[in-house]
């Protein structure tokens, strides 16, 4: 650079914002498309009818069978998730816990903490919520918030413990949260056979939540938890990008040395980040409990806490991205059931597609290679996701 080229600093114009958004969305979008295409291959390869058609109908018949196989599978999946008002409502119901859980992991990522313990925090939160929700008889205006709050506090406390261990002893949060998951799993087994079991205790199921703590359903099974999720997503965005707390979280998450230099108490922020993450995990559990299940039984969560990692990655740890990713995953999940019944394809195919999405997001070089997209600078992608071990 030289003196004569004077560039006037200005804020970015609209066009460059659109371009930035496009760049941000391109890889996740292509990752999903690619995963669906490969998923299609797997459907074809595992479909006996295709082999028979190749044997009997030759190339033409075989290709036709391939088309039928894939189109029936994906057709039934999408009609099953978006085909009717009820289907759409089911998709949104399935998306709700994904939004909360995805936000939980995303906040962790932003703060440099890899919270693998969302599953455990969620389950502990459900236990707290079911306890408050079934044991106290209160007017709903008090009972519902109190029950939700119980879940949030339980999740936050459990996650904050992992954050505290990291801040004080350097114990890596990945190890801590994984281990703490097992503590919760076993604790819940024990509790469901003991103090949390309904009376008389014949099977490990909790007493039902009282109606005063319900999140009301209003559109088939769609409940107010969905709107709560959207509001919370907005609140998380506001917190992360508009407040000093968010500035601290993002600074610690991106460059803890600079954070310390800037006077931020990094240990405090680590604990806070985990607490917020855990509270969001707790919301995922509480809304699912109070809006859908209304009772806690074994197998309450179908791995929301782990799918949430994929969601946060897919959504680039941005609340809006997480919401979109959660809607996508919710749609896939609820369509998968229909696909299983109509096309006789196991719902596991969805897990494969989800796994492929994670692979492509985690290794964007693959996507760039497939679609010949030029790599940009090293700073691409919103900075560091998580710090390495021992950092």
């Amino acid at each position, binding site marked *: *650079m030289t003196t004569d080229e004077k560039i006037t*600093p200005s804020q970015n114009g609209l066009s460059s914002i659109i371009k930035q958004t496009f760049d941000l969305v391109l890889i996740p979008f292509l990752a999903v498309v690619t995963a669906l295409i490969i998923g299609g291959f797997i459907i074809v390869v595992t479909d006996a009818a295709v082999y028979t058609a190749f044997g009997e109908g030759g190339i033409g018949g075989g290709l036709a069978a391939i088309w039928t196989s894939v189109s029936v599978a994906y057709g039934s999946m999408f009609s099953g998730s978006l085909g009717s008002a009820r289907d759409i409502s089911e998709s949104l119901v399935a998306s709700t816990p994904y939004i909360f859980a995805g936000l939980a992991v995303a906040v962790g990522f932003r703060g440099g903490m890899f919270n693998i313990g969302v599953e455990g925090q969620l389950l502990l939160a459900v236990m707290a919520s079911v306890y408050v929700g079934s044991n106290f008889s209160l007017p709903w205006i008090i009972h519902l918030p109190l029950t939700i709050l119980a879940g949030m506090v339980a999740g936050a406390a459990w996650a904050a413990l992992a954050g505290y261990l990291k801040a004080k002893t350097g114990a890596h949060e990945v190890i801590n949260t994984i281990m703490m998951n097992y503590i919760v799993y076993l604790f819940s087994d024990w509790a469901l056979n003991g103090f949390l079991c309904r009376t008389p205790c014949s099977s490990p199921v909790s007493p039902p939540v009282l109606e005063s703590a319900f999140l009301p359903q209003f559109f088939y099974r769609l409940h107010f938890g969905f709107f709560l999720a959207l509001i919370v997503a907005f609140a998380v965005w506001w917190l992360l990008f508009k407040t000093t707390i968010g500035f601290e979280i993002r600074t610690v998450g991106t460059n803890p040395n*600079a954070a310390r230099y*800037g006077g931020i108490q990094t240990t405090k922020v680590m604990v806070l980040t985990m607490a917020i993450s855990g509270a969001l995990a707790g919301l995922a559990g509480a809304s699912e409990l109070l809006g859908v299940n209304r009772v806690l039984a074994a197998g309450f969560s179908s791995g929301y806490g782990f799918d949430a990692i994929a969601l946060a990655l897919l959504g680039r740890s941005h609340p809006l991205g997480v919401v979109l990713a959660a809607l996508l995953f919710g749609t896939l999940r609820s369509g998968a059931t229909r696909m299983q019944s109509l096309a006789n394809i196991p719902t596991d195919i969805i897990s494969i597609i989800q796994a492929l999405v994670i692979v492509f997001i985690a290794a964007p070089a693959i996507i760039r290679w497939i679609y010949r997209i030029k790599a940009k600078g090293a*700073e691409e992608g919103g900075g560091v996701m998580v710090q390495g071990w021992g950092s």
Partner: protein
Amino acid sequence: MPPVLELRGITKQFPGVLANDNVNLTLEKGEVHALLGENGAGKTTLMNILYGLYKPTKGEIYINGKRAEISGPTDAIRQGIGMVHQHFMLIPVLTVTENVMLGEESIHNGIFLDRKVAAKRIEEISKKYRLEVDPHAYVRDLPVGIQQRVEIIKVLYRQATILILDEPTAVLTPQEVDELFNIMKLLTSQGVSIIFITHKLKEILAVSDRISVIRRGQTVGTAKPTESTEQSLAELMVGRPVELVVQKKKAQPTQPVLLVKNLVIKNDRDRIAVEDVSFEISGGEVLGVAGVQGNGQTELVEAITGLRHAESGSIKIDGQESANKTPRQITEIGVSHVPEDRQRDGLVLSFPIKDNFILNTYYNTFANGIIIDEKKVNETAIKWVEKFDVRTPSIETPAGSLSGGNQQKVIVAREFSRPLKLLIASQPTRGVDVGSIEYIHARIIQKRDEGAAILVVSTELDEVRALSDRIAVMFDGKIVAIVPADQVTKEQLGLLMAGVPKEEVLGVFPQGKTKKGEKL
């Protein structure tokens, strides 16, 4: 005889940027050809083209008179081109031999590494070019200067005859620099040709046979060191007359602002890094700390700024006891800190410039309660970018995509815009181009004249001498001497930095005048 290497009309067009514009360069056998240019002038792009990392938009490369197609580093190595990067590409937990043979392993019995054969060849190379190094030492145990030798050996091991040295002196002590220059002379005397990339003018004059200056992607001149001066080269490089000497009036010290007494600090390995250090700085004066890297300067600065625990002793800033206060408390007293490693401590590289501007004042100056005042942030950012001449397309640009000089200006803007009583500037111009050095130095002196106390820590003796009113020399964790800047020569400082007792070095001074801690 054709030149060993010839670049003809190399042009490289990036989207929106013409990084190289019709660059011509010839390298004769056995010469050191210096490539001089500011950060971002296009030196690195050119070398990356030569090394096969980029494809030129236009232009040809000839090696020994023959047209060469270089499509990747492997190609470049095969054609005898070797590159020593500024940041070493060594694996600390492997030995020298293992590092050198990596990618070109000698093998016996099919699958076993033959370290003996490799070690023998390394010893041969060591002997031939006097690159002394123990082939069996682990790289992590070696000082930076020796690690660089390993890098050079690595390249020679692959039979390179054309050596590209990218800013090789940036990490070296003055002594190591001298050693490197001796090695370079020996290499060229044995027929190796060297392209030497730097922006340090003294070094160029000391070691090169020919100089090409690049500005804005174009070769703007070729010069011979015998016919050039630092001043003429700087002008060629920057494109305008440059002040190489800091213009400053005599200091007008007021009352003491920083008082350090018997300070003891431990380093990360729990060893004593700073031992019983005492000194003071008054408002309106600059105290420079000279010393070879790793003699306690880093720890000293970290303790004063609250980033490191002080074991014992006292640090008084503006009358307040500040030892072991938090960085924020110390900032709030009125201390500004330009950190030694700007990318590690001073900036969040992926954050936009405007967010880096508020790194340590986001919570008070730029917030109402917990809400960040974005309007104020934006307005201030636009103002500072103008005022501090940060060359950036926008305030939204991530700090990481600026050049080193402009990154440093972002930090300077942030740290100099607060009301400040004490300024601590650590390596304020490391890796910064000449134009920015001039600018940053002028700003530091301006702060001094406004009455701030200033502590400058630098491994560049010239910088310490240019800025300081008094110079403290650190060796092995102690301040071995504090002397007035205008009463000490560069050679004397060099000896003090190397640990020669001050009585021997400063014998020329009247007795008592240089007593430790005494103000002059």
